[in-house]
């Protein structure tokens, strides 16, 4: 029998803990495939966040650490400085990275820490049950913004990629989405590029992945992708914000 598709070796056999229709599984697979293709598997290590992907340390089939909420870039810094021969990534959601971990991500980026950060932005806290995130859209209803996010009260969503692109040190910053098969292929290229640069220790690489949360948005998986295209992408525009390897400053 000819095998035409299989689980990447850099994923363990532990079943994912994600809801039906969730795109974390897609994001995990893209990262796992890209790690294998880069030949880094034996020297790869990653940091799981707090949030829906808190168990990511069980899913990747190499040494992994689990970090306190928002602290993954600091933990990754310690790992990379302790073992410069290894390659380190963090996997973080929007609550983890853009709220409680704002200081850690900004300063890891500003130091040009030689790590990759995969930032999954679905505009909501998933694991704790659908609370407002720093990336929640204006007027979007969540369990802690039951009347909609009021921008005169709590401000506007944070565009993290653009924010980090104001810093001099980051080597590569791109925002992609996971909302269609074509988008996923583009996302794969961005993830691969980040890991390629990581393998060459070029500097700080950051990929923001626009995603969905069907469960907490209360929208079915397919419609949630359409909703994200119509509502998230106009605010969180995909694009390359920095690519020193390609001369994009």
């Amino acid at each position: 029998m000819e095998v035409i598709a299989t689980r990447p070796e850099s994923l363990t056999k532990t079943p994912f803990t994600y809801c039906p229709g969730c795109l974390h599984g897609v994001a995990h697979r893209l990262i796992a495939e890209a790690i294998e293709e880069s030949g880094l598997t034996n020297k790869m290590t990653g940091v799981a966040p707090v949030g829906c992907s808190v168990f990511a340390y069980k899913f990747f089939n190499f040494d992994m650490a689990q970090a306190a909420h928002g602290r993954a870039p600091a933990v990754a810094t310690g790992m990379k400085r302790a073992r410069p021969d290894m390659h380190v990534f963090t996997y973080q959601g929007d609550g983890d990275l853009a709220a409680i971990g704002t200081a850690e991500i900004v300063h890891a980026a500003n130091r040009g820490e030689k790590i990759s950060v995969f930032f999954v932005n679905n505009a909501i806290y998933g694991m704790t049950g659908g609370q407002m995130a720093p990336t929640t859209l204006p007027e979007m209803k969540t369990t802690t913004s039951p009347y909609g996010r009021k921008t005169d009260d709590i401000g506007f969503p944070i565009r993290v990629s653009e924010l980090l692109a104001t810093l001099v040190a980051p080597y590569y910053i791109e925002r992609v989405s996971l909302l269609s098969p074509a988008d996923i292929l583009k996302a794969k290229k961005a993830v691969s590029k980040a890991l390629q640069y990581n393998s060459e220790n070029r500097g700080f690489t950051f990929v923001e992945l626009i995603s969905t949360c069907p469960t907490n948005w209360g929208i079915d998986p397919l419609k949630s992708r359409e909703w994200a295209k119509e509502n998230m992408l106009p605010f969180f525009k995909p694009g390359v914000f920095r690519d020193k390897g390609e001369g994009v400053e």
Partner: protein
Amino acid sequence: MSKILMKGNEAVAEAAIRSGCRLYFAYPITPQSELIEYMAKMMPKVGGTFLQAESEVSAINMVYGAAGSGKRVMTSSSSPGISLKMEGVSYIAGAELPCVIVNVQRGGPGLGDIQPAQGDYFQATKGGGHGDYRTIVLAPSSVQEFADMASEAFELADKYRNPVMILADGMLGQMMEPVEFKAAKTDAEIAELGHQHESWCICPNEDGDMKHHHEINSLEIDPLVLEKHVNDLYAKYAVIEQKELRYESYNVSDENEILCVAWGTASRIVKSAINELKAEGKSIGLIRPITCWPYPYEAVKKALGKKVKKVYVFELNTGQMVEDVKIAVAGKVPVDFWGKVGGIVFTPAEIKEKLEACFK
């Protein structure tokens, strides 16, 4: 090797480097600034990592990452900064990672002041962060001991895969005393240290067949698994309580009428008062806990001897270690306490006066 006149902050930094510490992450705070500055100057010279973090929170999480990678790593701070680190210390204890944390205590609560104090005893010995865990706490009383504790702290941290705190204060950090250093570990010895944790730490799958999947983690979502983990931690702590108690008995004998208990800077001053009173024919013993956790309860109990009619505890706080002393004494004799706060250090004359009153 000859003795060098050095501040405690610099001496502990030099001793840590000699002990094979090649990773140091910290944030500036008074009165431990000389420590971070010494590391900034010396780490590049030995091929080590010095990183000034954006916050105490980040610094302790960098320690978590580096300790999880199996390397000797240290951070340092003073009281308000140590409070910020406590989240990370809890994770480090939960994930069973070896590291050394130096607290050069200052006056509190809140921003307090920048003078010596012992107000962090509860925080250091009774947890500090959330959850059921223990930190091994070493309390120096001289610059020499402060320096010696660096290597001891790393040995204990590696042996038990547990955070170890050196609980000093602004006096020990700022004061200069002669100090003699142990020989520095060689590069080969440091490389060997790097291998000792490879059965569990973050390290490459060198042979390429993905033999290991190590997890640096404090999360156990299944209550039964977490129950076992916490019980295993407590079994480890019980071994530490058995094997790693350290204390000094000073002038302790069956002739003692008063037994003092004091730690760190406070104990030096109490010793001076005891010596003066000894010359006047008054017999007073001192138990100085060197490990504040594990606490030398039995040593305090035994030192009550035959004639001790009162135990006197002196601290630079409003009464923290005295609670452990009361557990040890268990009501056999009265336990008195006197302390000074606000960063004010008591004098030998003040202690002498308090002790003399016990003989009237």
